[in-house]
């Protein structure tokens, strides 16, 4: 049975070779945090890291991913949503419907690793994901906050966080 290295563990799967990596992650491995949006690499909701490179998994045949290539999905980005991007996202209340945000966060995490102090132009180039709710300005602010060590004050949003409350 073929195998993938996902979030640090080898995982066997059963799928035809031309099955996109996205659907192996979602349907064979139960990792549904990575989303289907378009199926043609336009929207970025399916973004995962492949050996650290942000990759649109909806057009990547699983047979082209080697068993030792390291795949990281949103579920494996951190153990407890503690990646600087995730923390900044939380502080600035970035998600609206949230469906595109896994891909947004994965793209942002790759950007921050490649460019710890991204300029606006860097953000424009790297963040080509589509968000229909329109969270773009908060995404930008959160990337900047993460780059500055997590200080959300620069965004000027003044959001009051109360520990414990949840849906």
């Amino acid at each position, binding site marked *: 049975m073929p195998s993938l290295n996902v979030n640090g563990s080898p995982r066997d799967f059963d799928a035809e070779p031309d099955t996109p990596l996205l659907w192996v992650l979602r349907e064979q491995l139960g990792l549904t945090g990575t989303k289907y*949006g378009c199926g043609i690499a336009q929207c970025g909701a399916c973004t995962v890291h492949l050996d650290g490179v942000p990759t649109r998994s909806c057009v990547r045949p699983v047979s082209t991913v080697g068993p030792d290539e390291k795949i990281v999905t949103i579920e494996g980005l951190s153990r407890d949503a503690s990646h600087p991007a*995730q923390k900044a996202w939380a502080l600035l209340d970035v998600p609206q419907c949230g469906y595109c945000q896994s891909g947004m966060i994965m793209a942002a995490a790759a950007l921050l690793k490649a460019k710890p102090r991204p300029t606006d132009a860097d953000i424009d180039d790297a963040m080509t994901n589509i968000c229909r709710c329109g969270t773009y300005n908060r995404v930008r602010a959160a990337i900047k906050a993460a780059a500055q060590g997590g200080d959300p004050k620069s965004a000027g949003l003044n959001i*009051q966080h109360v520990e414990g409350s949840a849906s």
Partner: protein
Amino acid sequence: MSAVLSRRSFLAGSGATGLVVAFHIPFIDEAAAQAATPAAAAPEINAWVVVQPDETVVIRIARSEMGQGSLTGLAQLVAEELDCDWARVKTEYPTPGQSLARKRAWGNFSTGGSRGIRESHDYVRKGGATARTMLLQAAADDWKVPAAECRVDKGVITHAASGRSTTYGKVALAAARLAPPADVALRDPKDWKLAGKRLARLDTRGKLDGSQVYGSDLKLPGMLNAAIRDCPVFGGKLASFDAAAIANKPGVKKVLRVGDSAVAVVADTWWRAKSALDALPVVWDEGPNAKIGSADIAATLKAGLDAPEAAVGNANGDARAALASAARTIEAVYSYPFQNHATMETMNATAKFTPAAGGAPARCEVWTPTQNGEAAHAATAEASGLPASQCEVYKLLLGGGFGRRGAVHDWVHQVVAIAKEMPGTPVKLIWSREEDMTHGRYHPITQCKLRAGLDAKGNLTALHMRISGQSILAGVFPQNIRDGKDPVVFQGLNAPGPEASIGYGVPNLLIDHAMRNPHVPPGFWRGVNLNQNTIYLECFVDELAHATKQDPLAFRRKLMTAHPKHLAVLNAAAERAGWGKPLPKGVYRGIAQTMGFGSYVAAVAEVSVAKDGKLKIHRIVAATDPGYAVNPQQIEAQVEGSFVYGLSAALYGGCTVKDGRIEQTNFDSYPVLHMDEMPKVETVVMPSGGFWGGVGEPTIAVAAPAVLNAIFAATGKRIRDLPLKNHSLKTA
């Protein structure tokens, strides 16, 4: 239990009631779950409030959360009156089946028209206030003191005279047994402690780590997956298909007709179902609409611009006579195309049809992201042929709604039809993006001819707006058409009043509609008819100002003296934007205002256009007066988001028709705004009190006309038909 179905919170909630769950399957058997949840474990104070012994306060929310934040806002309103500890607040969705059994205890579930808060603030606050009164009474009864002597803060009840204190969790069981008070007073918004505050959303955590379960993520034991293809031509039918050709494809379980017009493949995984469907030979009967194209539709609408018959939406004076005698008349024709909602998550639902057995009646359950649980419930009953009492709908969080998931539940009808053919097996149906793009419920297509009469001094004396085109109600709720008139067509143009009223006083005014309904099905699309009506009116008013050599802001102000709320937001946006003050070289301003969904909104856009025609939107300043602001930071998020949606449509959107079908199939042919094009947005939230307006939609309508007016200021080019991508802004 949790409204938003993450595995973590579901297990935590279930554990508290002793229910053992082997899978993360919310509500897999609601009856068993209820039987295993003794009321004593979590006393329900009333329909809205449950207080658990560990002091957790569960607030029930009937309206759906689709990103707009009203789950948090409505909880703030209940908690405000309840005086509970916000840190202990959780939320849950009641189900439509429970609502039916309890005579609609939670009121309307519909989440559209920006009505989540504005149409339920009163009864949800009363729910909180009633619960507080009962909890205080329970403590007072226990202490044998008058309830009026007891105080509560963050769920801790105290009686100062005796120095005693207790908590909501400790008195909840006793409170649940009390009769509710006949009436309760609500707090004056100026005394709000939780409502009105910039609180963080309640539903963020699961959206950061992939744990949030959306409809398309749901997995039930034994579940199969379905892909579907509907006839590409609206009104066409499925003629035949060759199931044998794909019978040997991996994972395929069933190939079946769905209704008159669709075919579905059911397989073990969705990817296998979709792959097999792509290979399935299908013959369509494309029906009477198979030759219709966009030019045909445009010609039909154009004829309506001068048709003698039209339904009048707003009129005063005698516009036709005043136009005939005006010193000068100006005329322009505008148009606005079909738009797809293009929610990030495509349409999907899971259904399980359980036949009658062993004395138990048949049952049909549906799990789906929906903006209206009650409508999804009705669709389930209709499609299954079962009484509503034998159906249930479990709402899942929406990956975008924007109106697509509210009025019409076509995908629910489909999934129930499939599940009925596979009794006992849960089936999840997911639409491909291509299916979603070509089988939407589209923003209506209209054209508008505007004629203005001006006196010798350039004052507006008469205005006739003739709208020609599609009626949403005719396609969705035809029973609401009155005497041939669809009142929703006139959003933003209504006579003075509390809803979507025009902001200008014109001595002779006529606004009428010649209904022309193409075969493409219409739907409510974020902002609805306010989108194009505001473009038509606000761009035309801009034309009048320029034609008479008047400042666009000053020209508007003269017409708005009897419309102080409209004028106040216009002035606020202009002031914050620095209207009239110098701009960097090459940057130009445009302005627009309107009123809709109960709120007053205005915007100023700053743009530049390069010689090669490339547009850059630098900044948009928006002002909104929604009456009351329940969570200002979420209002700001909605304003920004609405601009992305509105500008995506105006700049790039537009669905065209060829051979009876929609031509755009994905985000490559239906492009949307990306981050690199996103302007800075500054939002002035200016609640003036005394009314409750909506937030999710109104501001969408002012983004496009403000930008289009700024483009005219920059280039002298007046864009009258959208999207903008069809025009060149080159000046060199």
